[in-house]
Every structure is written in structure tokens, then in C-alpha cells.
């Protein structure tokens, strides 16, 4: 019961947030410099063409009316037509979204695979050389811009050693895993660094906790202690952290897709910005916002399911 109540509360809270999100997106695009009509018509068009396009797009209507159209159209799933791609924005985004989601999930899985065991190793050996080495490496990783990591991997593993393809995204599932390996590693290096840090701290916290010390003193096998307390704690902390860093993950995919020529929504966003394709910028920004809030919601619900005390907040 309480769980359903909590979920409902959570959903109701999202409504005003979303209204604000829509206002932000709307204002962003209305403030774009350069007449969108000129962007649509192209350099070679006549002034009359441009006036006609302005009229057609409703750019002459009052701002409030324009917002109302934007809001109602969006709620009906109509995000307008892309200038750049001459197709409905929704279709364009839906065609590119699976690639980005694939990359994101791939990257998350890799970061867990990288960070999990290393965090554990570091926590258990805390203060010793293993710990210091692992943390030093990740510290450096955190200080590297994503595009730089991508560039290095691309140059050495793909171009020089020819271990991986230079770009593209493959057809079948395994082909896709192979093509997107380097991009996923690029994104994962950054998230795994954050994850490793927090996971290590979480494990240490449990190991130091009085009840664990007590259980140890009582002679309970350490495997049991680790299994019961550490894993649960680590799981909560991993989920929370991954949920919170979804924004960073998305930012990372945006840059990575550009470096590796992966045709996902991140690269599309940059193309849209350079082409002043304002319906597409609008649609993409909204898509990112929806993705992030969905992940936030899922994280929240998952957390409250794992640890009911958290619902109090």
C-alpha cells in the first residue's frame, strides 16, 4: 500500500517539474539567434520565401499562443518536423534512440564489471598498494575528458592495432557489441571511476560498522558477512549512484557518439545545434529530460523497495 502511495506521490510531483521543463525548452529555442525561417529556407532563398515560411511555422503568433501550441502538440506526440532531416521529429528521434540506449546500457554494464570487483579489492586491501594503485588510476581517469579518452582508444586500438572498427554500429546484436565496444568503454571509464569511489566507501562503511565487527568477533564466517551486508549495501549504493549519474552518462554518450561516428541521439543533438534545427533541438532536449527523469523515478522506486526507510524523505 505504502509503496503505491509513494509511487503516486512521486508521479504527482513530476507534473510541475515537467511544466517547467517544457517552459525551459520552449524559451531556449525561441531565444535562438538567427531567424529559424532563414535556417529552413537556406542561403539561396528569396525574402518572400522566408516570409512565407515564418507564416507557415506560426512564428508570427504571440509567444503565449506559440507555447500553448507547443505544449498541446507535444502532449499529443507531435514534436514538429525536423528542418535538417525533413521528417517528423518524433520519428527521427525514435529511429536513433535505440542506438544510444544500447550504448548507455552497454556502458553501465561495463562500468559495473570494471568498478565492482576493483572497488571490492580496494576496500578489502584498504591502505595497501592495491588500494592506492586502483585509486590513483581512477583518479587520473576522472581527470580525463571523455573526448580525449575516446580519441586515444580510437587512434591506438582501432586505427593502429586494428583490433576494433573505427566507427559504425553493426547489424546483429554481437556485431553491435563489437562495433560499440570502444565507445562503451570510453563512456564506462568515466562512470566506473565515480562508481568505484563510492562503492569502495560504501563497502568500507559496512566493514567498519559495529554490527559487522560484532559478527566477526562472534566468529561468523566472513563470506556470510560479506554476502549478507556488504552486497546489499553495495547494491543500494550502486543503483543510487548510477541513477544520479545518468545525466553524466548521457553527456558522455553525446561526446562519444561524436568522436566515434555512432549515429545516436547525442550526435544528432550536435548536428541539430550546428544546423539550427530548432524543432529537433526542442525534441531532443525533451527526450533527454524524459530519459533522465524516468531513470530518476526508477532509481527512487527501486531504492524505496530495497530500503523502505528512504521513503520518509
Amino acid at each position, binding site marked *: 500500500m505504502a509503496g503505491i502511495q509513494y509511487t503516486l506521490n512521486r508521479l504527482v510531483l513530476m507534473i510541475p517539474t515537467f511544466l517547467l521543463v517544457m517552459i525551459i525548452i520552449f524559451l531556449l529555442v525561441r531565444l535562438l539567434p538567427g531567424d529559424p525561417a532563414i535556417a529552413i529556407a*537556406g542561403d539561396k532563398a528569396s525574402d518572400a520565401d522566408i516570409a512565407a515560411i515564418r507564416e507557415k511555422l506560426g512564428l508570427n503568433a504571440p509567444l503565449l499562443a506559440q507555447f500553448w501550441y507547443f505544449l498541446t502538440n507535444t502532449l499529443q506526440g507531435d514534436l514538429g518536423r525536423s528542418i535538417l532531416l*525533413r521528417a517528423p521529429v518524433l520519428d527521427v528521434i525514435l529511429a536513433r534512440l535505440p542506438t544510444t540506449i544500447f550504448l548507455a546500457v552497454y556502458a553501465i554494464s561495463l562500468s559495473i564489471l570494471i568498478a565492482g570487483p576493483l572497488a571490492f579489492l580496494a576496500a578489502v586491501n584498504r591502505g595497501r598498494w592495491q588500494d592506492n594503485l586502483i585509486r590513483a588510476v581512477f583518479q587520473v581517469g576522472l581527470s580525463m575528458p571523455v573526448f580525449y579518452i575516446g580519441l586515444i582508444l580510437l587512434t591506438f586500438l582501432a586505427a593502429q592495432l586494428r583490433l576494433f572498427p*573505427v*566507427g559504425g554500429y553493426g547489424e546483429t546484436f554481437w556485431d553491435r557489441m563489437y562495433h560499440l565496444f570502444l565507445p562503451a568503454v570510453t563512456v564506462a571509464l568515466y562512470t566506473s571511476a565515480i562508481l568505484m569511489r563510492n562503492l569502495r566507501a560504501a563497502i568500507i562503511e559496512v566493514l567498519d560498522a559495529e554490527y559487522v565487527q560484532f559478527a566477526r568477533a562472534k566468529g561468523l564466517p566472513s563470506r556470510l558477512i560479506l554476502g549478507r551486508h556488504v552486497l546489499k549495501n553495495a547494491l543500494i549504493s550502486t543503483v543510487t549512484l548510477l541513477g544520479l549519474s545518468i545525466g553524466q552518462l548521457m553527456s558522455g554518450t553525446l561526446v562519444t557518439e*561524436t568522436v566515434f*561516428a555512432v549515429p545516436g541521439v547525442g550526435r*544528432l543533438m550536435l*548536428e541539430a545545434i*550546428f544546423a539550427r534545427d530548432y524543432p529537433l533541438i526542442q525534441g531532443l532536449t525533451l527526450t533527454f529530460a524524459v530519459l533522465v527523469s524516468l531513470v530518476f523515478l526508477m532509481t527512487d522506486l527501486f531504492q524505496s523497495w530495497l530500503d523502505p526507510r528512504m521513503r520518509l524523505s
Partner: protein
Amino acid sequence: MKAAALAVGLAMSTALGAFTIGTADAVERGGTLNFARYDGSKLVDPIYADRNPDIWMVGSLFSTLLEPTADGTDLVGSLAESYEVSADGKTVSLVLRDGVKFSDGSPVTGEDVVFSLDRARNPDLGPWAGLLSAISSVSADSGNITISLENPDPALLSMLATFNTAIVSKKAFEAAPGATDQEKSAALFAKGGPGLGSGPFYLSGFEQGASMAFTANPHYWKQGEDGKPLPYIDGVNFQIIPDDATRVLKLTAGEVDIAEFIPFSRVAELDADPSINMNLFPSTRIIYSPINTREKRADGSPNPLADKRVRQAINYATNKEALIGLVLQGAGKPMSSPVMSSATRLAVDMSPLYGYDLEKAKALVAEAGLEPGTEVTLTTLAGSADDATIFAALQQMWQPIGINLVAEQVDGATRGAKNRSGEFDIHTYGWVDDVNDPSQVTGWLGYYPTRKAVGTGWNNADFNTLYEASSTEMDSEKRADQYKQMQEIYAEAAPLLFMYETPFAVAVSGKVDGYLQTPLGNNVFENVSLDR
């Protein structure tokens, strides 16, 4: 004017065959070409194609009635076997080639031609209708096409060899879902559309912004060297890789066979690679900078560039060879005609057009009484490395003549808006001809009513009169003379900073033969063969 009748046919396939010299002994058939593009096509419909990545692909899917010869100086038949212009220049008659077919095997008929041309000249549809405004009607009697004109148009034949008049299937359009022509077109060219082509290929795959595939049209009328129909290859797969470095990596890693738009800074390195043929195809692309010639700037302050002598001075003070060295690593040449590329028909070679002469430049600014340290703004494209280099170089070059050049970086749309409103001093710009005729580019750069002479505000009555006269002049000698006069007037007035022409840099794997990019930019795959 005398009626010009030309029978074409056999002569034409030999002309095209010239591209594949060297593979004459045994052309291999089959295989798929992998092509890395800098930008994707959106809609390869002849009449809606308005960006180069669309325009340049139209010819691979849809043939026109006529086509330019290999050197671009003349026209020969393509889907039409022959053409004839009446003595008064107001009627063009064409005869369709026998047995030409769309990729599904259905015949290309006179009805398809009427449909395609009516579509192309409908001003409510595509942006190019204005180029066909001289046409009053098009009719067909089976394979005999008659085009009636309101007034003689010397550019009309060239227009029939231009992408927007390419022939599409009337049946396919009528069968496509949608109420308007736009909707039908979108449905036909969408992913999974029927992809009916009249050219060497048809569209067989399309993933918006990511990839595109062409498959050979088995019914294409042109013959290869082996006596069988072109094209030699089974198809082309396009991948879109906007990043220059990644595109080159793809080629050197062997993942694609051709990479286009190679940054000029890498031409030498790829040229040295024995497994790659580095091509620099001659183009009609010119890079220039419009100069605001109005008496006052948009903010009301006096405009030092309104004085012709100052404009001439900055042209003399610009060392084009050095600029070409810096921006293009030498892979280009200074503009030799002021209003068009040297590859455009009727271009007059006036080189050196404002050859580097600092003393002359200094004398001109002194004569004009230009204050030393006068501030002039160069508007450049943000994020463009070329523009950044151009700015840095011009700033150094113009300092000695007392001009303090400052940069203003904007995006493309803002630059376009500034060009329209005249709120600029000088800005970088470029152009590639879309039509195999000088009228388009000359109108764009110099004819005031078109677009205020590329936004410079330069309004010269003599030039305008000559341009108007030339657009109905059917006597080719007289027309050439009008163009010569226009180029002389324009060069003297210098409403532009005349910069350079650049070739199309395309790196092609050694196993590919016969690829061509025309001076207009069209990608030609019909003669491509792969060594396998």
C-alpha cells in the same frame, strides 16, 4: 539563330568510356562500394533536393534528358536521344531514347517526362522552379517531347541536364500514399520505399542520418566496355561520418573504399600512401568574401569600404598564394574570373586577378585617404578551422595598409541573416554551381535584383542591363561577349574579396576504378568497378 540539331548516341558512350581508361582490358563486375560521406542525404527527390548532399546524389538515381559532356563544355543526350531548338528559340523538341526503363522494368514514357518537368517548374513545390520560369508548357506525343517557351532562354538546355529536371516515374508518384506532392515524395523516399530509379541505381536502403544504399538498376540504358549494361558494381553503401579524422581513419583502416571531403591538410599524406589514390577533382567551388559596399554601415556610421579604392586595396594586399598554402596546403588556385569559377562556362581568365601587390595597395589606401588603424570586422563561421585561419592570415596581411581587422564569429544562420540585412563589413562565403551555366552564379554574385549582389549592396546599372540582356540572348557569341563585359565591370568594382577555388578532395582506395565527382559536385558511380 539556325536550328541546331544534334544526333547523339554512340558518340556519347565513348565519351564516358574515357573515364575508365586503364581498366580497358578486363573490367571486373560485381561488388559493393563502401563510401564514407561527410553529410547525409535527406531527400534525394530531384525537385526537393536543396542541399549539396542531396543534389549531388540525384543523378545516380534519376537521369536527366540531356547531360553535360565529360569536359562540361557541351551537352549530349541522356534519356533523350536527340534535341532540337527552333529558329526563334521558343520551342525545344526532344526524342526519348528507345527502350529506356525504370529500375522495375517499366518503360520511361513521354508522360513521365511531362509529369517530371511540370513538377519541376511548379513554383508551389520545390525551390528550383524559378530556373524553369521560361517554360510555358510541356507536351508529349509518345516519345516526342515538345517544350514551349515564353521567351528564348539560352540556359534552358543546360537546365535539362540539371538534377531538378531529372525524370521520375509518374505511376510511382500516383501510387504513393499521401495527399500532397510533399507527402508522396516523403513516402517514396522513406525507409522501405519502392526506390524506383531512372538512373544507374535505385534507392534500396535509407536510415535517416546514418546510412543509405543504392542498388544497380538492371535496366540502365548505358553500356559498359564489356558490352553489358552499366553499372559494373552491384551497389553502393553510404555511411555518414561528419568527423574528418574519423572518415580518413575509416579509409586507411580499409573499412570503406572512398572517403570524400578530405581535409586539405591531409592530402599530401594520403597521396603518399601507395594503396590510396588521392583525387583532386576540378570543381566550380569558389571561396570569396562579400564586402559591404553601402555608403553607410547598418549602424549609420560611415563605411570605409564604400570606397572602391579601399576594396581594391584589400584585394591587392591579400596574398592569395599564401592563403592557399595555409588553408588548402596548396591544393587550390586563386580565383581567375571575378564572378565564377574557372570551370564554369564563359569564365574569362583574368589571372592574376588582383595579384599580390602591397605597394599598389598602399598607394590606393593613401589615395582614398583611409585613416591608419581603421577598424574593419570580418564575420566568420564559428567552429570553422578554415575561417579561423583566414582571419588570422588576413589580419597579418592587412596590417601594413592600415586596416585593423577584428573577428566576429557567428553561426551559419546568423551569417545568412547578416548577409541579407547588410549588417557586416566583410564575411566569408562560398559557392558551388548547381547548374551547368554561368547565369546562376553571375546572378547570385552581381545582379542586384536577385539578392543585392550577394548582399554587398553593389548596384551597377550597366551590369544589371547586361545580365538581363544575356538571359534571353540566344546567339552564343553575343552572350559570351556580354559575360566578358560583366566580368570586367565586376572585377574593377571589387564588391568581393576574391579568394580562391578549391577542388573536391576525394581519397579512393586503390582497388576502385572509375569514380568521378563532376565540377558541379555530382557523385558519379556508374563507371565504378572494384578489383576483388
